């Protein structure tokens, strides 16, 4: 199952790309509309990029009235990412969206590096959201804290799944002036540099919880997707790669199936979690491929 990372694709502006996903995740919506952070918001760096958008979005009222009906017309499964500045914000957003049948799942963005954090912990936010909706709830976590502990706490608070990882904090300086490139100073670092960070986080979360996991972080090929599945992801999301290759979902799906087939697996998901066991040696009938 291939999704997009929240904020990396606009299904209304690019429906032809969204159609190549199994599920589309919206940009994070907050209770009030937000212009977002001051520009400059984007910087290229080694092995990836920085962003500091600051959750620009029209707010839940306009989202429900104007965007949701148009998104509901499309044929992809719809996930809505919600964010806020207190546990109450998340509960309010989830309650508003709970009755909307067109929404398959809600993702709680509790890990945006570019805005002020709620005072509550991720688990307290999950608990507040849980009490407001019966929809599947995925908690999108940061790898910058103890992933096992946060993942376990999110599970205990009622999360149905986890999304790992969000961007990590990074900073780039202007070549000439030595001033930060981004107006906000630091931003969220994404792209290929995150692959090993994402693998470690998904590995830890799978071991700690066994929950369904949307794995993301620097995926650019079917092999990268397969590795996330091997450490425990049940779905894979694409983020930064979409910016330079909008055809990535279809390409990576094909590559992933070919990677799995080359290993003798009938489905990529048969590789889920095998990194925790003995890798491909967990399948005695496949030992010819590994020995």
């Amino acid at each position: 199952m291939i999704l997009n990372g929240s904020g990396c694709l606009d299904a209304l502006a690019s429906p032809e790309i969204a159609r190549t996903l199994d599920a589309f995740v919206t940009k994070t919506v907050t209770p009030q509309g937000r212009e977002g952070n001051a520009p400059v918001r984007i910087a290229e760096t080694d092995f990836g990029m920085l962003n500091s958008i600051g959750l620009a979005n029209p707010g839940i009222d306009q989202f429900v009235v104007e965007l949701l009906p148009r998104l509901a017309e499309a044929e992809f499964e719809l996930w809505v990412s919600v964010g806020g500045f207190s546990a109450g914000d998340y509960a309010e957003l989830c309650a508003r969206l709970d009755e909307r049948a067109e929404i398959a799942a809600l993702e709680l963005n509790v890990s945006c590096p570019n805005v002020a954090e709620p005072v509550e912990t991720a688990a307290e936010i999950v608990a507040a959201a849980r009490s407001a909706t019966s929809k599947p709830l995925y908690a999108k976590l940061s790898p910058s804290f103890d992933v096992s502990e946060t993942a376990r706490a999110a599970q205990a608070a009622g999360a149905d799944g986890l999304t790992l990882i969000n961007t990590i904090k990074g900073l780039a300086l202007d070549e000439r002036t030595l001033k930060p490139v981004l107006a906000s100073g630091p931003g969220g670092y994404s792209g290929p540099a995150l692959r090993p960070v994402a693998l470690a986080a998904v590995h830890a979360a799978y071991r700690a919880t066994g929950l369904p996991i949307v794995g993301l972080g620097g995926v650019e090929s079917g092999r990268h997707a397969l590795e996330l599945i091997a450490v425990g992801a049940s779905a894979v999301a694409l983020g930064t790669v979409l910016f330079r290759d909008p055809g990535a979902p279809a390409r990576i799906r094909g590559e992933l199936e070919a990677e799995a087939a080359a290993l003798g697996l009938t489905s990529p998901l048969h590789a889920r979690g095998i990194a925790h066991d003995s890798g491909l040696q967990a399948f005695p009938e496949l030992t010819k491929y590994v020995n």
Partner: protein
Amino acid sequence: MLAAILREWPTAQVAWEAPMACGFGACYGCVVEIGGRLRRLCIEGPVLAAA
């Protein structure tokens, strides 16, 4: 420079530039402030009014 352009040509349009990530309206990375509003250059620009 923009202020000078606006003095001479109040209705001038200019080609704006900003670092751009997605280029198709998704990431809100390439916004510039024009007339108090943030506009995405990739799908609203890059040629927009100077103010």
